């Protein structure tokens, strides 16, 4: 039961002078259980794409299949609630969606909307908050008293508490400090590996793509440009340059080594294995 887009078009305000085609003929299939990065310049349709996954936007042409839900253009989609239970979507700057008096109550809001009893919701909320690294003593605080990064963690806990099968994150690390961003990405990896939740991340950060993701989807001007695993993606250095993608430091380093006559295997993607690969070559 993967995620599948078949010839999907999406147009904003069709039939007005503001009509804008944000997605053009998207054919895409994403495997479950993986961590996939969706990259592309601002305005390339990434956010529009992910909003199709829980029927916030409905395709104007084509078909989207998520788990066993089918969303066809021009047809009324009736399983909205079930789909949104299965697909947790964390928006850009998610901290703005908090509204309850206490952190704990806000995290309970999602599960209770999907019919979980209050006692169970509190239990789930506590666990989700601890997972995202919010300490017990903050549970009764007002969300407004917390820092920006903490608020975002609370918002993410609110989505995790819904126990989705697919977690979609729209630029989850935007505006966070580097350490905060790293630990946020660690958290998503943990969620992906330990709970087997499929994770989709919209991001601009190539270091994160390299370090944490399995697959890459590249969007450009509403079209799907490329879908591949990260090894193949980062191997193609000219392509990245042409597409104006700033490669991660380690890939740039490997490229410089290559230019100077030292080629390293394409599966060497972290600093430790690169160091030992270089050392091995030097010994020879």
């Amino acid at each position, binding site marked *: 039961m993967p995620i599948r887009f078949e010839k999907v078009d999406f147009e904003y305000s069709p039939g007005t002078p503001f009509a804008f085609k944000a997605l053009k003929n998207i054919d895409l299939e994403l495997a479950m259980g993986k961590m996939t990065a969706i990259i592309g310049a601002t305005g390339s349709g990434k956010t529009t794409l992910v909003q199709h996954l829980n029927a916030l936007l409905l395709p104007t042409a084509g078909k989207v299949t998520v788990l066993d839900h089918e969303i066809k253009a021009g047809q009324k989609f009736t399983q909205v609630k079930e789909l949104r239970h299965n697909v947790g979507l964390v928006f850009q700057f998610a901290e703005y969606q908090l509204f309850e008096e206490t952190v704990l109550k806000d995290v309970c809001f999602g599960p209770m909307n999907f019919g979980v009893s209050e006692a169970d919701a509190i239990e789930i909320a506590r666990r989700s908050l601890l997972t995202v690294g919010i300490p017990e003593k903050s549970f009764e605080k007002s969300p407004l008293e917390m820092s920006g990064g903490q608020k975002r963690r609370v918002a993410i806990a609110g*989505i995790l508490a819904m126990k989705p099968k697919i977690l979609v994150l729209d630029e989850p690390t935007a505006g966070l400090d580097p350490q905060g961003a790293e630990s946020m990405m660690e958290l998503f990896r943990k969620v992906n590996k330990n709970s087997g939740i499929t994770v989709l991340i919209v991001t601009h950060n190539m270091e994160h793509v390299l370090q944490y993701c399995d697959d890459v989807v590249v969007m450009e001007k509403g079209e799907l440009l490329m879908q591949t695993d990260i090894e193949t993606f980062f191997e193609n250095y000219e392509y990245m340059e042409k597409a104006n993608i700033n490669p991660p430091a380690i890939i740039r380093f490997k490229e410089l080594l290559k230019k100077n006559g030292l080629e390293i295997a394409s599966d060497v993607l972290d600093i430790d294995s690169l160091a030992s690969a270089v050392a091995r070559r030097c010994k020879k």
Partner: protein
Amino acid sequence: MKNITLGQYIPLDSFFHRLDPRSKICAMLAILIAIFVPAGFIGYGIMAVILVRCVLLAKLQISFVVKAMKPMVMMMFFLTIINIFVIKTGNLIYTLGPITIYDDALKQTAYIVVRLALMIMTTTLLTATTKPMDMTLGIEDLLIPLEKLKVPTHDIAMMIALALRFIPTLIEEADRILKAQASRGVDFENGSLKEKISAILSLIVPMFVSCFQRADDLADAMEARGYVVGAKRVRYKQLKFGWGDYVVIIAANLILAGMIYLAIVKGS
């Protein structure tokens, strides 16, 4: 959220788009007064023809103007009902049990409906062809005479400008929060009263929080750029009258005069 036609600026290039906002506002006022002159259906017919020509001249689609009238349909409907029950003069034209309809009732209703339609057409013509910022500049200039009465015209204009500036931002924000809460299982359409209240709260509370935050940030940003309340300010964009502006103002006033003439002829 994005389908609000009333008061939306349509970025095109036409004779009306290039006009000075001041002349457009003045012309609109003249036309609005003309609409309320009881000139009979002949007068309204003439005005409708002129206004439709103007809409086309502004390169707008008639369907756009019709869409702007949609929110008024309910109001027109209620007006019809009320008029039918209240106005009992003229000739009796229809009886159904206790319900009697007189021709004056229908005439009055038709008058109001036509007036509303013409008014919406006129105002849409103004808002669709004038950038919100130009509009506030125009309003500010037209209010200058009030400065003698110690009315803070610049502050009023600044407030209008800021409010207009933030409408799209807030719509976007509301849209985002709406979607975020919908992703958390909020159903904004169905559900019991209690669920509905909680659904609306989940939208309003974050909106309030972010509005205050934005207002705070904006005040800081304005101060950082040297804005002082009540200080004398010069303006980057200078409004200039062209020949078209004189034509529009004279034409609007001719229409007004024509309607008054028609009304007098009809009355005597």
